[in-house]
């Protein structure tokens, strides 16, 4: 039996990022988790296997990550808020069905606690190597939403935000965290349930017989009926018209559908995008960072200021859709941009595109050690010299 009274653990806790993520999901109303164990995301599964039963939800350990995301799509269509959690190898396996979720406009949350790749790579070591896979991993044209937490508190807050965005836009949303954030223990404040903003999918108001499952409102998002509610609708991964009927040859239907699926994110990007600007007002060198490197970046910027370098930080919370405008605004103002990433250069490509002629310096890190503030300061010093 669903028992929401246990869903929100109001109070101050000391917990890991993975655990905070699970608690955020429960606070957002998640009632279904389908997953397959993988380091460094396993603790999310473990927590959910215990906690979901307490709140009367469903935890199921599927046979693999393909099955996990398929079950999550099914649960979402059956009316439950649903999620899965994984890391690089499992994320790769999910890609085809991420496309299915995009095509069938399924609200769901995928947590990827990134480790080192390619392949099995370094399972217990941090990485930010799935940034481009999160954006382009499934075939076809689509837009995606991905958020990058940089603290344990944000693992809690942004997991809720992921559910809210998924339900608002009827899309899969990715929480793209790294191993350090997933495994780090910090203080987390969980507010009372009534202070948490929880959004649920909008429901159809049309009579059941007139309902068209993929007919959008003005905001480009169709109201969502679920199985068992009497609407008796069809959904398919094939290109389909507003009634959900397959249209496998019409260029018109294909164009209209693919554009709408992308545009419901593109046209709402301003509402979706979140970033934190620190000391950028008068900065002439900026760090643009997300996830774990943004913590070193913050210290670096503060330290640099003491040394007389006019440094600022743009911390990206939303990485997809890419905060193009925010980055170009910063680029127009500064002499150079430093991008610390735990990969061999991924989001830096987007920064370069937005920065146009402003020089962009990649600080790449692979493996165990995240960036040190001193390295970022040094890069800034060289850049403005």
């Amino acid at each position, binding site marked *: 039996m669903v028992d929401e009274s246990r869903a929100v653990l109001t109070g101050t806790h000391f917990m890991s990022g993975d655990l905070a993520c699970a608690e955020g999901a429960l606070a957002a109303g998640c009632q279904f988790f389908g997953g397959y164990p993988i380091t460094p995301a396993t603790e999310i599964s473990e927590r959910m296997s215990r906690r979901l039963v307490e709140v*009367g939800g469903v935890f199921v350990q599927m*046979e693999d990550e393909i099955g996990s995301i*398929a079950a999550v*799509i099914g649960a979402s269509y059956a009316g*439950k808020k649903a999620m899965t959690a994984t890391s690089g190898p499992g994320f790769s396996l999910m890609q085809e069905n991420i496309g299915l979720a995009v095509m069938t406009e399924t609200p769901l949350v995928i947590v990827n606690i990134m480790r080192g790749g390619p392949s099995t790579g370094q399972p217990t070591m941090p990485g930010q190597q799935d940034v481009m896979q999160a954006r382009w991993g499934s075939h076809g044209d689509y837009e995606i939403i991905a958020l990058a937490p940089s603290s344990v508190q944000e693992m809690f807050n942004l997991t809720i935000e992921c559910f809210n965005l998924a339900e608002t836009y009827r899309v899969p949303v990715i929480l793209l965290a790294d191993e350090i954030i997933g495994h780090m223990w910090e203080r987390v404040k969980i507010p009372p349930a009534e202070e948490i903003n929880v959004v649920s999918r909008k429901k159809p108001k049309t009579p059941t017989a007139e309902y068209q499952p993929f007919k959008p409102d003005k905001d480009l998002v169709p109201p969502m009926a679920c199985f068992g509610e009497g609407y008796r*609708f*069809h959904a398919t991964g094939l290109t389909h018209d507003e009634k959900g*009927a*397959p249209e496998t040859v019409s260029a018109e239907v294909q164009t209209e559908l693919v554009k709408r699926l992308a545009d419901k994110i593109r046209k709402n990007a301003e509402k979706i995008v979140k970033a934190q600007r620190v000391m950028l007002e008068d900065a002439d060198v900026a760090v643009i960072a997300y996830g774990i490197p943004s913590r070193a970046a913050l210290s670096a910027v503060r330290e640099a200021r003491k040394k007389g370098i006019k440094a600022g930080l743009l911390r990206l919370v939303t990485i997809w859709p890419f905060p193009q405008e925010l980055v170009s605004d910063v680029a127009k103002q500064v002499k150079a941009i430093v991008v610390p990433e735990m990969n061999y250069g991924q989001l830096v490509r987007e920064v370069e595109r937005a920065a146009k002629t402003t020089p962009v310096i990649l600080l790449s890190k692979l493996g165990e050690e995240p960036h040190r503030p001193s390295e970022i300061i040094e890069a800034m010093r060289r850049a403005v010299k």
Partner: protein
Amino acid sequence: MSESNLMMHHYLAKYLRQERMPHIWCEGCGNGILLNCFLQAINELNVDLNKIVVVSGIGCIGRVSGYINVDSFHTTHGRAIAFATGVKLANPELEVVVISGDGDLFAIGGNHFIHAARRNVDIKVICANNFNYGMTGGQYGPTTPLDAWTTTTPYGNIEHPFNLAHLAAAAGAVYVARWTSLHVRRLKASIIKALQKEGFSFIEMISPCPEIFDRYNKMGTAVDVMKWFRLVSQVRHGCDPAKAEITENEILVGEFVDIEKPSYGRLLREMTSRVQDKLKREES
């Protein structure tokens, strides 16, 4: 009466999405027979059409979900059972039926099949086994007989086929039946039985594929294939599915397995009550 009038007045018409007709299947294909039997079954059972969900994968038979006028979902290739698992666990009130092909369920989706059967998820799986990948033009698959000619076995098939009934039974299905598209009344009866039974049920329907597999293998017209079904099939209820290999000379059909075992959903609900009761006791 014109064709469309005929269709509107047919007693099963209300179960079809008529605007989606005509269907995509070839003349003589068994998929229409399977659809017909399924509709007859839900008609006879008088099930609440708002509480039944039909899920399919990709393939010729995969299009079936789009034709039935209930909540339905056409998943990616091979993933119907995993999707259905999510639906059933998230809302146990729904009757969840997967209808898909031999390739979809047992090649690309084989892992989901055995694990859903093992867990005894309360879903019904119906397979249209036409011994090949029809949709992509007749390649061999996991049920293609040895020596058969397909577009990817130009020298004859050298892979041993699955005996699907045996596989389902070994994986833990509580109900396993096999029929051919000739056995329409018995197939319908099996679907009715499966729908009323708790747990993972599997029904295989051997299906003609007159335009592709049967043509390549010189099996004659659809009617000839039906005649072959009549000639070689024998009803053996309760027969050991391990001994029910399909051969050119023998197709054993019938209800092979019909056992009782608690379903995953039931065990989950019982566990949840236990845990919640304990929490309540501790709190008071």
